[in-house]
């Protein structure tokens, strides 16, 4: 079971890991994030007991992203947990605000079988459409883009794994995926227009 977050003994190693992460030490950063994740889950579960596991996980990821974005604001001379807990509080408050906005704006509709005046609004997404077309479109992509799509989208590898396999950087993989998706959208959009 995770120790309470305020314990000095638990804070000290994390403070060092965070200091190393600020200096660019990726191993220390992984160790830090791996160590704080279960604790974050615990804190969020305690404070939002009504949330399901997936919502808790979303909030944990939200906190990790925020931690990453504002990691330069941490002062290693100060304790790590109060800094992290302030971010958690803020993310929880943001999530509560988002939820309350959604509740105010959303309307429960009993009967969804509605035909709208605009034909495009009646379109129902039925997956990828013509699979053969998709396969052809993927084949026509440049090598780097095809590889990125295959590894990240079809084999569902993480960016890091795909980067290790291809020898490309994470940034280059992201860019290749982005371009490939744009090309596929164009190719599949054009073919569906031809059919119309």
């Amino acid at each position, binding site marked *: 079971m995770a120790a309470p977050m305020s314990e000095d003994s638990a804070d000290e190693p994390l403070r060092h890991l965070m200091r190393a*992460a600020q200096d*660019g030490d990726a191993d220390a*950063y992984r160790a830090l994030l791996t160590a704080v994740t279960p604790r974050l889950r615990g804190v969020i579960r305690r404070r939002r007991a009504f949330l399901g596991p997936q919502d808790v996980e979303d909030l944990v990821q939200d906190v990790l992203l925020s931690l990453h974005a504002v990691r*330069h604001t941490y*002062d290693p001379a100060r304790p790590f947990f109060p800094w*992290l807990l*302030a971010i958690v509080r803020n993310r929880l408050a943001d999530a509560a605000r988002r939820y309350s906005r959604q509740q105010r704006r959303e309307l429960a509709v009993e009967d969804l079988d509605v035909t709208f005046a605009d034909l495009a609004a009646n379109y129902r997404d039925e997956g990828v459409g013509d699979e053969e077309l998709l396969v052809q479109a993927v084949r026509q992509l440049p090598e780097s883009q095809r590889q990125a799509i295959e590894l990240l989208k079809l084999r569902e590898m*993480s*960016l890091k794994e795909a980067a290790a396999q291809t020898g490309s950087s994470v940034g280059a993989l992201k860019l290749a995926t982005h371009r490939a998706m744009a090309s596929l959208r164009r190719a599949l959009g054009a073919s569906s227009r031809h059919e119309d």
Partner: protein
Amino acid sequence: MKTEDLIHQLEGELRPVQRLLPPWRRAAIWLACGVMYVAGVATVAWVRRGALGVESDALYLLQQAALALTGVLAALAAFASVIPGTTNRARSALVAPIGLMIAVLLWGTVRDLQQFGTVGIGRETDWPCVVSITFGGLALWGLAGAMLRRGAVLEPRLTAVLAGVAAVSLANVEACVSRVHAFTATVIVWHGATAALVMIGFMALGPWVLRRLREEPQV
């Protein structure tokens, strides 16, 4: 996405970062710029008109001291507000100089009434101070906003308001130093109304500006 995958992704994107200076040092840098601004505008006013509004009167000096202290504490509180988990004592301490300033202004009004038989409302206009407080407040707030964008703007409205109080306080010091005011009520009405309007602007638009200025997260 699984949390483990996100951790891998964040690890892959990790770059060394430059740590933020402590809030007091960043506030000191901003205050130094603010003092230079006040000194610069006062010098221009002195060269153009050959006179300043500086007085040796105790009430005047107390009022300027309270304004300057408000600016210092608000700047400290604003820069501390963008560091998660920082105890913000400066924010609570703001009550003291603001209270002192209100007391001094009321005391000055009573003294005017005793000396001149009127508090002087409507006796003089103060458009130059309206302009200088508005533009000075905007310029100093803009500088603070540019500096604050590197922090974690967790509560944009609070940060915008604190930076606004700091900026408007220094702009008020400049207005009081650069121009002579015959009645304390002129300061209360003209400076007070301008400061209130500018603060409403900071409160309404400041959070949006801070979000726009904020450095994009690297994710």
